[in-house]
């Protein structure tokens, strides 16, 4: 919101308070000043009188003038069409700065010009406040404007505007009356509020009010007759300009300034254009032309002001075009009402019409303000619009005055803040806030002014106390609580470990968006029934991802497009389906995991690289990696290469998939050749772990033998390894495949697999013993699979 220093100074003496000090004071009290600046950019311009004005001898649009600025007469060349002899104008002398322009003596087509005659625009007055005539040429002042005086002060533009950011609980200070009280409390100074006059009213009034909606809680109406429409006095216009509201005429301006003072939006109707019967209604549907001459679609939930079944305004948001004040208005109906803030918010948002009035209704208004506003508007209409006949106020509901009492104990204050405070200090603060504190037996009882709707519990009072004293008095003290063990959960520890392992594989960690395009909510192992946002920002951020396949591939595609390397990444994230949540780990490889570099063998991206990584993760979890079972994927795959991909399982539990992205799909998403693996981390962590017990050490040498078998290509290698282990039991500890050899000479559909067989190192083996074991293995292999020793 805008705060005018000049206006504030009419409430409370701030002459000795610098702009910076005022800003700091408000900020430290929770009314954050985001910046402050003079209302107009120039302050050094003066009033001049045009003594002579001739056409420039050498130009078709320039004028040569002599301007009396009091202390001297200046020769000024002026380009404005409207400049003329005997005008009072605004002059920037040599040496002053107007906007970005630094005024210097200059020759214009041979004639020396020593200064500039200014337009409102050049002074930095917003376009909004200039009439058409004013924005066309130079500013022409009233004939009685004093020559040589500061023009900015004369125009009432000598103001500083503070940009104050309000927290939702302090909408009260949208009313200048409340803001001035706040400043008074902070400075511990008296505040003078605008004074209203008693008025004599007529005995009766024909005005009747009714409401058929629950969303209108109060409505005050009053007829005021024989008003004179004219221009507002300058003090009133200055307030509006400082608050970024365009002055219209005295009556409309009064409705605006009363709202700025009290926070209560007011609406004035031209009485001759409506009847004396006003009803607040909802449950209507129509197209309605509001004050801004735009047409709005009214729905059943919108609250409307009607007169004789004719709609005359959208409640709390904007009046109607058909009953607005005009130059011929003589009689008014004043409306001050209270509407349900939620109803107004919903209408305002749907109609996309956030007016000053709507903003105040939405944020909440002092319930007493409605009465103050009626009195104030009446007073001003008498003073500034010569109102002659004042009808009594008609109210929809009984006028009630709420008295809210809130208490807080000294003990509570001291305990919650963790500091000692004097009783007097607390009393001073509560008094300064007009909370009328009573201190009895350790308890401060306060009567809360109606504009402080935010104060309802003891903690609110404690906040007010420390807010005004200042948080700097709080010294930091360490906690004294029962010891607690600080820790990460088992899962958090594993996830950290997995990330370190993945870094060790030379991968970069990526973090991608959760929300994806619904067309991307797919992929191998996508959770069923992904959920979507009801009203998303865009189609691309609509669906909560149900897998990591799509996101990581689009990251791969992005980095591929920019030729960023090495394009190998991993991500750990939650994925969601309907009523389902899983933590997933995804790895995508497009380049050598270890590049061919000086003195370094390369490790290519491949199915086997992924499988090795998976085995490492499984090992990290204390699971025997031989528990890993891979199964071929279905042949009708669209996301994965049907013959270079697999489903990974631990016993019968599906862990995830690994393999090459289907070339057609990769092309579709503009990704290069990619190997991808996506694992359900929850399933991995749920699998039973082996205890990590140390085996006793012995001094027998390790024995290993190599065996190469020629076998059918479709013989399961994991089954074959099990066969070797079982045939060699209990002597064979482990079996590794170290070579694959393919040749037509081996026979049709045959290949040779070389195994390294490692023996349990618990004895000194004799050669014959080893030979017996190997013979047994070879025989079993032959019998069971037909494989022969190569």
């Amino acid at each position, binding site marked *: 919101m805008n705060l005018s220093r000049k206006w504030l100074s009419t409430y409370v003496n701030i002459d000795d308070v610098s702009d910076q000090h005022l800003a700091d004071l408000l900020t*430290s009290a*929770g009314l*954050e000043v985001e910046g402050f600046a003079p209302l107009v950019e120039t302050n050094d311009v003066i009033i001049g009188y045009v003594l002579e004005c001739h056409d420039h001898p050498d130009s078709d649009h320039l004028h040569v003038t002599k301007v009396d600025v009091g202390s001297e007469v200046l020769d000024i060349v002026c380009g404005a069409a409207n400049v003329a002899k005997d005008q009072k104008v605004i002059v920037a002398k040599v040496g002053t700065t107007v906007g970005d322009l630094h005024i210097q003596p200059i020759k214009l087509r041979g004639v020396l010009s020593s200064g500039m005659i200014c337009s409102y625009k050049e002074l930095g007055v917003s376009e909004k406040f200039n009439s058409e005539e004013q924005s066309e040429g130079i500013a022409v002042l009233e004939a009685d404007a004093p020559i040589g005086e500061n023009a900015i002060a004369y125009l009432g533009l000598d103001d500083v505007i503070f940009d104050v950011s309000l*927290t939702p609980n*302090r909408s009260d200070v949208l009313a200048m009356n409340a803001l001035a009280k706040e400043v008074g409390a902070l400075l511990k100074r008296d505040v003078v509020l605008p004074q209203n006059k008693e008025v004599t009213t007529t005995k009766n009034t024909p005005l009747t009010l009714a409401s058929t909606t629950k969303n209108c809680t109060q409505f005050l109406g009053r007829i005021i007759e024989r008003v004179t429409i004219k221009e507002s006095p300058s003090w009133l216009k200055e307030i509006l300009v400082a608050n970024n509201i365009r002055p219209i005429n005295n009556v409309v301006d009064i409705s605006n300034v009363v709202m700025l003072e009290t926070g209560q939006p007011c609406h004035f109707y031209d009485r001759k254009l409506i009847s004396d019967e006003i009803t607040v209604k909802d449950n209507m549907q129509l197209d309605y032309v509001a004050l801004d001459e735009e047409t709005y679609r009214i729905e059943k939930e919108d609250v409307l002001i009607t007169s004789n079944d004719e709609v005359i305004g959208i409640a709390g948001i904007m009046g109607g075009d058909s009953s607005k004040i005009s130059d011929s208005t003589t009689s008014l109906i004043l409306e001050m009402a209270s509407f349900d803030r939620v109803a107004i*918010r919903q209408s305002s948002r749907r109609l996309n019409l956030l007016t000053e009035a709507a903003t105040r209704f*939405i944020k909440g208004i002092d319930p007493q303000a409605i009465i103050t506003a009626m009195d104030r508007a009446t007073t001003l209409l008498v003073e500034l619009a010569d109102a002659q006949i004042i009808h009594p106020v008609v109210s929809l509901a009984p006028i009630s005055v709420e008295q809210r009492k809130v208490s807080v104990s000294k003990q509570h204050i001291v*305990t*919650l803040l*963790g500091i000692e405070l004097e009783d007097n200090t607390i009393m001073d603060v509560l008094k300064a806030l007009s909370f009328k504190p009573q201190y009895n037996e350790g308890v401060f009882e306060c009567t809360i002014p109606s504009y402080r709707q935010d104060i309802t*519990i*003891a*903690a609110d009072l*404690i*906040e007010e106390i420390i*807010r005004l004293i200042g*948080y*700097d008095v*709080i*010294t*930091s*003290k*360490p*906690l004294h*609580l*029962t010891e*607690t*063990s*600080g*820790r*990460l*959960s088992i899962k*958090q520890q594993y996830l*950290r470990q997995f*990330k370190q392992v993945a*870094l*060790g594989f030379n991968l*970069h*960690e990526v*973090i*991608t*968006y*959760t*929300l994806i395009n619904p067309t991307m909510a797919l992929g191998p192992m996508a959770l069923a029934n992904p*959920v*979507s*946002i*009801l009203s*998303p*920002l865009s189609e691309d951020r609509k669906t909560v991802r149900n897998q990591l396949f799509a996101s990581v591939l689009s990251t791969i595609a*992005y*980095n591929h497009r*920019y030729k*960023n390397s*090495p394009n190998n*990444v991993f991500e750990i994230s*939650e994925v969601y389906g309907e009523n389902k*949540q899983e933590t997933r780990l995804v790895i995508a490889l497009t380049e050598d995991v270890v590049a061919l570099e*000086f003195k*370094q063998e390369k490790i290519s991206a491949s199915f086997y690289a992924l499988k090795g990584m998976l085995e490492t993760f499984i090992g990290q979890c204390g699971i025997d990696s031989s528990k890993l079972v891979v199964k071929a994927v279905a042949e009708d795959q669209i996301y994965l290469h049907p013959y270079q991909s697999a489903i990974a399982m631990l016993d019968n539990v599906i862990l995830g998939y690994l393999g090459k992205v289907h070339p057609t799909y990769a092309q579709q998403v503009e990704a290069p050749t990619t190997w991808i693996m996506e694992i359900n981390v929850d399933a991995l962590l749920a699998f039973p772990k082996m205890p990590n017990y140390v085996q006793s050490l012995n001094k027998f040498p390790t024995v290993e033998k190599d065996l190469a078998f020629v076998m059918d290509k479709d013989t399961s290698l994991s089954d074959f390894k099990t066969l070797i282990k079982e045939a060699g039991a209990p002597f064979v500890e482990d079996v590794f495949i170290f070579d694959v050899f393919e040749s037509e000479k081996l026979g049709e559909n045959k290949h040779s697999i070389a195994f390294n067989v490692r023996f349990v190192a618990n004895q000194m083996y004799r050669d014959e013993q080893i030979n017996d074991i190997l013979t047994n293995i070879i025989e079993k292999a032959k019998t069971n699979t037909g494989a022969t020793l190569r």
Partner: protein
Amino acid sequence: MSQINQVLQEGQQAISQAETLEALDEVKNKYLSKKGIVSSLMGQLKDLDNEQKKVFGQQVNQIKQALLQAYNEQLRLLEEKALAVRLQQEKINIELPGVSFKKHQLHPLTIVQQEIEDLFTSLGYEVIEGPEVELDYYNFERANIPANHPARDMQDTFYINETTLLRTHTTAIQTRALEANAHKETLKVICPGKVYRKDDDDATHSHQFVQIEGLVVGKGVSMANLKHTLLTLAQAMFGQDRKIRLRPSYFQFTEPSVEVDVSCHVCNGGGCSMCKQTGWIEILGAGMVHPDVLSMAGFDPEKVSGFAFGCGVERIAMLKYHMDDIRHFYQNDLKFLKQFTNFEGGK
């Protein structure tokens, strides 16, 4: 006798003149093998009488030993020479590059999140998480944001259906933690996680970001304790010289509520572009847990009090790494991710 001496002299000379291991081996064969010169001297024994045999035998043995000794010495000498030659031949170019053992670092958001988690686990906090697809009940109701509150509008929140949404703050984790631990004497938790707001993405806004909130509930927990904890956090993240400043603010979850400014880590509070010449940078929101929040979860606000604080991980990371565009975190450009190479640790 002279014959024996002659063999010794010639042998020793031959040995010392052998310059290669092969030559030395030849000399050894010539003199010391079974058919060598020394052995052939022994063949003369049969022509001698017993007395002479004894003397002659001893002499031959002596020169055999002497020759063996000479041989061994020469062998050692030649081997040393040969080793020196070999080592020299094995000379490498030590200026060629080292083998490239690459080790990347984590995503910057993970780095900052873990630093904060580690600080608070060391202070006895438990790290807890919660669902991102959350009930509005835990996200709003329990956080003291009642129905019809503007914050609950469709405008700001990603609703999935009438009661489910993408959580808008990690306060949702806190409200769950409060409910689950209402029986405990002391609760100290730190709650990191992704949160979502209906903001258009630009340099300073992101519809998705990471928040970390902390919560302590116990007997006599005060604003002075909160200030101590916030100072500890500010100093751990931005250096031991940092100061903090509390300003009144407003959050539904807390009362009183404060914004927390930290003295600028770039200019040390003197004023620079990082802190917009103010010397202070706003990084946290905090406050004393609202009594209604405590009682809704089953705590008795008459008996216990608590504090809560929260910050955006992106904001901290951007300050720490001098970044000006939040979108970099989610673009995952490898040129960006590669810049987080050194391990820094806490301050």
